[in-house]
Structure formats: structure tokens, C-alpha cells
């Protein structure tokens, strides 16, 4: 039996003016390109959950033969972001029409199981752990069921855990590899469509398992840059210290997402810098205190507002760049908000910035609220869930004002002038008085 696992990542901005802007502002598309170039950790994990003796072929959708030709797999598994899910459904329909059974899984499928089930012989909801092995047993016995419920807890514990099959990346041009150390995030921001939607509570992988995954990935990919596929990596400080200390001897470079509270712990920051941590992506969401109210259930982010600037400066002083994320279109945002973000970015001297538009991903509290308020522009807009296309009516401005403001802000933030300013600031930090952590050195090869 050969199982074809097909990854569909990467997004394409739909709004023409924004797509054109991306051509002239390389920094604007930079992060999107990086995300598109990452292998699918979900499918590598599915491969890891597949019993030995069953052959698995990993494919990126762009590698598939041209339309009309289909590889002769016995079973196909497809995972896609919301923005690519319509294309995933089309591909699934083609395989099914050719008599090849299809399994769909991933975050979107977990949020919209009934929709996905129309295009699949079986769907996997939530994590593949606990579901995929049963599905394969049933498939081999000729009694595939339409829906398999994955585990929502205990996914990193034996016997549920499986090492992702990084060996499937051999010979491919990846230079970035994802490793997951946790699922979930207690902040529970209402727009978040990440792993917290498929887990009950925060789950953390033992440090030894993460390190072993990194070692395995490094055997296959030369000098990989590791991206931790986490919602919020450093909630458990004891684990975080142990992780940083264990990563340091590997001599790797890595990146992850966390929240502003990491700045409270200078001992941890020093260890992270020493461990090769290059960048922390932090969702500041807005430079306006009012816009942060109600973003998460406990108003945690609203309470952090006053220390944003100090936290950015402290983290960056360790040579770790902060990629500050801001969302435009929040309910309290007005046409004044765009300038406010630009001014905050300048004032904070953030070394990298990610600007996105509020996006009501299916399954999120935000989606349900905007749907109930009749503010969604179309009933089904999945291919526009790019984080840059506007899909809803903002509260305090028009759709076109939001789109125009975003384009203005992109042009400001990602201009050569601003980019040069950020690069200079980083160089001054590197030359600064603080003792340089090991990762500040140009990486020795």
C-alpha cells in the first residue's frame, strides 16, 4: 500500500492592489514566502503515525503532475490552510473521481467538518494522534468510516506521540523546518485560528523529544533554520529554561511565537539568546489600548499594553529580534489607527513587523460574532483568508477605508527607508555595550 500525503501551504493575496504592492515591497511578502516554503509538519506527523511497512510518499501540491495526471496512490491524505482549502477540495474530488480514496485533515477541516466531508471518503478532526492509526486499520479491512476523531489531549505522550518523518524531506530544497513543542495557548484571542482550536488546554512536549526531533531533522536538512510551530512557547518557565539549555549545544538558529511576558524573565532571555534564538514573534495586535479590550477572554493583552515598549527594548537588547504583529480592523480601530501603528513601530524600534487585517477564520469566536452581527461580506470566502484581504465590515470605517489604510501602512512600514532604519538599529544593538551572547556571532559553519 502506498499513501500519498499532499501538502497545500502558501497563500496568494486576492485583492489586486495589495498583490501589486507585494511586488514593490519585498519585506511585505517576505514572511508569506517563508510560511509557504515550510514543509507540512502535520503531514510529516501523520507519516510518523503510519505503521512501518506502509509506504508513504510526501508531496507538495506544486510538485504534482499537471492537471489530468494523478499518481497511483492507494490512499491520499490532504492537509491545507483555509486559504487553500477550495483547491484542496478540487484535488480531492479529482482523486475520488479516479477511484482513489481521500482523507482530509487539518485545522480548517476540524473547524468545518461537514463541509470537508463532502469532498472526502474520511475526515480527521483535531489532531491526527489517536485517529490516523485507527483509520489505517479500518482502511486495510475495507471498512473506512467517514469521520475519525483525533485526540485533544495527551498527544505528546506515549503511545499517542509519533516522531515526525523528517526523512521524507531528504533531497528537497528546504532550509527551514518546523518542530512543535506545544499546542494551545491560554490567552485564547478571539481571532486566533491556531492549534488552540484543536486541543483541550495547553499541552507541552517533553524537552528530550523536541531535541531528538531537531537532531533527526538536521540529519536530513543541512543547516536548517528551525521554526517552532507553537502558539505560545514560553508559558512554562521551567520547561523553557530546560529547552533553551538543551538546544544551545546543537548550534542551531531558531524562531518561535510567544507573548510579551517573556520580557519579564531576563535569565530566560539570556539563555534563549545563547541557544540560537534569532527572533520572537509577538502579537501586540494594536498600539491603541482601547482596541485591545475584549481581544481575549481575560483581557490579558489589554493589561500588558503599558509595558509594550519596555518589553520590546529589553528582548531586543539580547540580540533577539522581535517580530511585532499588528492587526488592523479591530472593532475600536478607526482611520486614525494606521498612523498610530506606523508611529508605534518607529517609536518601539521593532526590528521586524507583521501587519495583517483582522480575519474571521471559520471556527473562531470572531467568526461566530461577525456572522451573528451580519458583518461577513460573503458566506464563504476561504480563499480570501490570506490575512491581507478584507472579508468583513469594520465597525468604525468602511471596507474601502480599511483596504486603503492597509495599503498606505504597508507602503510606510515596508519602505526601503524604514527597512534601513530597522537594519541600522539591529547593527547598533550588535555593537552595543551588552555582553554579546553566543548567537550574536556570525554563525560558524
Amino acid at each position, binding site marked *: 500500500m502506498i499513501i500519498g500525503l499532499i501538502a497545500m501551504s502558501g497563500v496568494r493575496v486576492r485583492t489586486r492592489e495589495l498583490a501589486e504592492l507585494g511586488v514593490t515591497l519585498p519585506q511585505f511578502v517576505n514572511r508569506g514566502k517563508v510560511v509557504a516554503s515550510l514543509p507540512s509538519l502535520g503531514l510529516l506527523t501523520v507519516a510518523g503515525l503510519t505503521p512501518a511497512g506502509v509506504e508513504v510518499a510526501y508531496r507538495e501540491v506544486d510538485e504534482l503532475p499537471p492537471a489530468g495526471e494523478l499518481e497511483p496512490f492507494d490512499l491520499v491524505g490532504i492537509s491545507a490552510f483555509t486559504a487553500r482549502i477550495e483547491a484542496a477540495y478540487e484535488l480531492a474530488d479529482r482523486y475520488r473521481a479516479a477511484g482513489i480514496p481521500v482523507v482530509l485533515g487539518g485545522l480548517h477541516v476540524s473547524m468545518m467538518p461537514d463541509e470537508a466531508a463532502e469532498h472526502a471518503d474520511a475526515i480527521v478532526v483535531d489532531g491526527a494522534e489517536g485517529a490516523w492509526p485507527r483509520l489505517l486499520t479500518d482502511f486495510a479491512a475495507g471498512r473506512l468510516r467517514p469521520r475519525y476523531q483525533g485526540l485533544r489531549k495527551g498527544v505528546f505522550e506515549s503511545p499517542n506521540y509519533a516522531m515526525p518523518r523528517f526523512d521524507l524531506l531528504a533531497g528537497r530544497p528546504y532550509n527551514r523546518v518546523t518542530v512543535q513543542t506545544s499546542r494551545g495557548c491560554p490567552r485564547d484571542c478571539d481571532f486566533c485560528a491556531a492549534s488552540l482550536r484543536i486541543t483541550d488546554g495547553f499541552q507541552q512536549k517533553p524537552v528530550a523529544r523536541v531535541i531528538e526531533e531537531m537532531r533527526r531533522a538536521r540529519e536530513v536538512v543541512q*543547516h536548517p*533554520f528551525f521554526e517552532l510551530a507553537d502558539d505560545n512557547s514560553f508559558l512554562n518557565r521551567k520547561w523553557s529554561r530546560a529547552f533553551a539549555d538543551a538546544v544551545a549545544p546543537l548550534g542551531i*538558529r531558531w524562531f518561535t511565537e510567544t507573548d510579551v511576558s517573556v520580557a519579564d524573565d531576563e535569565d530566560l532571555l539570556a539563555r534563549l539568546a545563547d541557544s540560537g534564538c*534569532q*527572533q520572537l514573534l509577538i502579537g501586540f495586535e494594536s498600539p491603541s489600548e482601547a482596541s485591545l479590550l475584549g481581544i481575549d477572554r481575560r483581557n490579558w493583552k489589554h493589561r500588558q499594553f503599558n509595558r509594550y515598549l519596555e518589553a520590546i527594548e529589553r528582548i531586543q537588547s539580547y540580540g533577539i*529580534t522581535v517580530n511585532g504583529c499588528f492587526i488592523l480592523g479591530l472593532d475600536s480601530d478607526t482611520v486614525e489607527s494606521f498612523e498610530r501603528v506606523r508611529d508605534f513601530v518607529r517609536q518601539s524600534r521593532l526590528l521586524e513587523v507583521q501587519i495583517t487585517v483582522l480575519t474571521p477564520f471559520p471556527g473562531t469566536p470572531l467568526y461566530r460574532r461577525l456572522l451573528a452581527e451580519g458583518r461577513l461580506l460573503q458566506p464563504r470566502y476561504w480563499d480570501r483568508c490570506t490575512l491581507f484581504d478584507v472579508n468583513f465590515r469594520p465597525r468604525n470605517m468602511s471596507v474601502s477605508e480599511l483596504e486603503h489604510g492597509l495599503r498606505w501602512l504597508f507602503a510606510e512600514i515596508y519602505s*526601503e*527607508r524604514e*527597512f*534601513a*532604519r530597522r*537594519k*541600522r538599529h*539591529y*547593527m*547598533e544593538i*550588535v*555593537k552595543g555595550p551588552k555582553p554579546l551572547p553566543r548567537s*550574536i*556571532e*556570525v*554563525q*560558524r*559553519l
Partner: protein
Amino acid sequence: MNRILAERRVRRLLSELSDIDAGRLDGSDDLPAVLNLDSLATLRMLAMLEQHFGVRFDDGRLGELRTLDRLLDALEAAQLQEERS
């Protein structure tokens, strides 16, 4: 400092930093690619060169400093600027 001396020093520094024999680099080689430097590591290299030579590169041209030839041109320009100021 004359260009030949500056070039020797830059090559030596790059060799020390990357463990690659920078003596064999061509003036037009793309340094980040040859030395396997990501964007941050490239900036760290430039910062280190600034510190070593006591100069400051033109902020607007940092992105162009990807080859030995361009680096040496920028060093010359920056040193000239230092002397004038």
C-alpha cells in the same frame, strides 16, 4: 587605509567568522550565499566590519553590501566620510 590592505583585513575577518577560506572569494561572489549567512547574520557581519574599521556604512545602501567589491567600495566611502567629518 589603502584598498589592498583593507581587502586583506576584510578577507581575514570573513575567514575567521565563517570558517571558509575567504582568500579564495571572488570580488563579485554573493557573500551571504557563499558564507551561508541569513539576513541577520549578514547584518552582524556588517556591524562587525564597522566596528573593526571604525566606520559607519550608509544606512540606505546596507542591502547592496553583498560582495567583497561592494564592501570595499563602501569602506572607502565611509573612511573618506570619517576623514571629512
